[in-house]
């Protein structure tokens, strides 16, 4: 589906949650670079997660999942004693191959960059909010104080200078890896194979498959359990599956919408 510049490979994130230490450097580095406002001082009590989820003011979110598990005994076999594991995973906009947010955006604020990433242009967004329900992951959100929609840009401004996104740059254990998507997929396949060999039987890749409901994600994950455990939808589907053909036959309707947003675009220019 993507029509990228032939010379620019698609870039993305591979977040290997098996090495995430839950330090939240990604959250801070993202906010510092992108000047994302403070979300607020809310003690949530959901383990060490006080961010809660992705939103207009949280473009990276580290989930913490405390799970009881059997402890292996000295010989390595489960003895049924109470043990636990603590899963941590840094979530982010998936930069879907088929991005519903982009499809429904009437102003063209959302666009696909030459890196294959999906970015909101703040100066164009008029805050209509169509993108919000369109996202199958619940990522994009309007900022209350502002009205416009915000989400991860994969640090579009940094990529142009050959820099990696702020979160990946900071990540102490390289849980967040940035690179060419094809290469990341290869790396992820290898990592998964190693983990499965090591007995991590629930390990899996999430969003890696180009044939899934969103055509694969530009930001995909290695998880150690079911996606739902991390608060991720198990089988996301692009909400605008049929939109391209509709779009082709609905010029008039689109123009009507466009006229509606033109006023606000005009208003925004001042």
């Amino acid at each position, binding site marked *: 589906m*993507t*029509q*990228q*510049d032939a010379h620019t490979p698609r870039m993305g994130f591979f977040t290997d949650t098996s090495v995430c230490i839950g*330090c*939240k*450097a990604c*959250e*801070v*580095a993202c906010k*510092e*670079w992108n000047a994302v406002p403070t979300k607020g001082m809310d003690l949530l009590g959901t383990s060490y997660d006080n961010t809660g989820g992705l939103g207009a003011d949280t473009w990276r979110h580290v989930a913490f999942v405390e799970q009881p598990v059997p402890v292996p005994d000295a010989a390595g076999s489960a003895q049924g004693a109470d043990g636990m594991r603590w899963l941590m995973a840094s979530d982010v906009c998936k930069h879907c191959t088929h991005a519903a947010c*982009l*499809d429904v*955006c*009437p*102003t*063209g*604020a*959302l*666009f*696909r*960059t*030459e890196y294959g990433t999906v*970015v909101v*242009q*703040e*100066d*164009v967004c008029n805050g209509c909010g169509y993108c919000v329900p369109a996202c199958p992951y619940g990522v994009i959100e309007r900022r209350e104080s502002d009205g416009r929609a915000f989400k991860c840009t994969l640090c*579009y*401004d*940094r990529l*142009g*200078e050959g*820099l990696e996104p*702020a979160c990946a*740059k*900071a*990540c*102490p254990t*390289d849980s967040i890896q940035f690179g060419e998507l094809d290469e990341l997929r290869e790396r992820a396949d290898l990592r998964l194979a190693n983990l499965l060999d090591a007995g991590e039987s629930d390990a899996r890749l999430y969003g890696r498959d180009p044939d899934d409901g969103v055509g694969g994600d530009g930001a995909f994950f290695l998880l150690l359990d079911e996606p739902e455990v991390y608060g991720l939808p198990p089988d996301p589907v692009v909400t605008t599956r049929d939109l*391209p053909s509709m*779009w082709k036959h609905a*010029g008039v309707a*689109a*123009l009507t919408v*466009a006229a509606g*947003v*033109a006023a606000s*675009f005009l208003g925004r220019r001042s």
Partner: protein
Amino acid sequence: MGVRQWIDSWPVYRQLTGSDRLARGAAAQSGPTRRLHARTSDADQVVRSICPYCAVGCGQKVYVQDGRVTQIEGDDDSPISRGRLCPKGSASKELVTSPNRVHEVLYRRPYGTEWERLPLDQAMDMIADRVIATRRETWEDEDEQGRRVRRTMGIASLGGATLDNEENYLMKKLYTALGAIQVENQARI
């Protein structure tokens, strides 16, 4: 900007009239988006620094523009940190630019209920006077067993461990000359 140019700059118009109807690629970019670039490239200078939080000693690059810190991020060259920073290190820019920092001397007089302002020079002078007076009042040439101690037990100091070596050195040197021995540091804690 003429009207035509303005209309051209409207992404939806360009999507509808151009070849990129699905808003993929350059056609969808607004002017500001086209001009978008990393602010680090505008820096007047990039200063090598070290993270001030824990003792791992991660390398930092401090980007400065117009005399202001615009970004702090990890130094890829560091064999210790390889360019990475934890949440505290990543928050270093806020540490140094935070509006919660205080930039003036504050003075609370004995039994006072409010802070007062005081010029820095005056504060320094007052502190020097107190050091000298306290030292005089509490000076011990000998302890109670007649052993030479030449010290004051009236002045104490407790420093944090984010002090530079050079700062600790001058502190210890000055305190020792003054005869102040209750000189301590977070390193004891």
